């Protein structure tokens, strides 16, 4: 039997994913050209089995990109704050100084329609909805980062009320996304 899976971005200010106790901390200027470099710095001490090839770096870079580009508008005077814990699982809290992800509910609606199109085998509609285009999307935005993020961060992905801070966690059972 075919199942429809519709995940959602959620807002929960008091979620345990925002508990930074015991986590390491780094902050970065909002330099778009250094996003992947920032990820590499954060993951310097990450156990090899959590890296999953380049997958963890890729997913972390997407969150950092969202904070630097969409949150801080590439304003180098604005900081991106990163808390991280790479023991037993990988957990991050990333906060920017922007106005927050105002399109969060619109994105959830987009994702629901996308998944329904897939469920209904409506591939023409699914292809139209394959990537999210928001009011500020440009040629550098793929439009699929949050779709993949909801899959990858299998222990949760939560925003604060201001929607400028996200907490994520990935648990490992057999060590890799298959």
């Amino acid at each position: 039997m075919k199942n429809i899976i519709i995940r959602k971005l959620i807002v929960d200010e008091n979620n345990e994913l925002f508990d930074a106790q015991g986590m390491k901390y780094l902050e970065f200027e909002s330099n778009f050209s250094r996003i992947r470099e920032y990820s590499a710095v954060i993951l310097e001490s990450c156990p090899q089995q959590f890296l999953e090839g380049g997958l963890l770096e890729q997913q972390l870079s997407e969150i950092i990109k969202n904070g630097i580009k969409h949150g801080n508008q590439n304003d180098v005077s604005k900081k991106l704050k990163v808390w991280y814990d790479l023991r037993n699982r990988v957990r991050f809290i990333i906060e920017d100084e922007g106005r927050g992800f105002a399109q969060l509910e619109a994105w959830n609606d987009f994702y629901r329609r996308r998944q329904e199109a897939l469920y209904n085998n409506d591939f023409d509609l699914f292809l139209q909805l394959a990537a999210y285009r928001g009011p500020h999307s440009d040629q550098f935005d793929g439009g699929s980062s949050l779709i993949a993020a909801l899959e990858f961060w299998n222990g949760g992905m939560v925003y604060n009320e201001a929607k400028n801070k996200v907490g994520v966690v990935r648990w490992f059972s057999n060590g890799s996304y298959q």
Partner: protein
Amino acid sequence: MEIQFFEDADGKSLVVKVSGDCDLYNAHHLFSDVTGRLSGGVYSVVYVDLSGSPYMDSSGVGALIRILQYTKSRSINLKFRGIEGTVRKVMRLSNILSIITEDRQ
């Protein structure tokens, strides 16, 4: 990232070979280069070979989706080759493997 184009003998098929990381810094070139090459309306089949690309992010996936939309709107048959490793994982996470055609040589 490097993008190379190869034509078959009859000039109707085009192979697009992508090498290196396809990421937020260069993925827009993939879309513009490929669609620029296709704009003449000569090709009926296009193969995008990703076997030389070890890394792709959402910008790369987005470029592929836009190429898919472009080719579909012009009835060009688009097929993918060499989707492996991290690139395959990213495309699976992005849930687009179900809408592409893979050419397993």
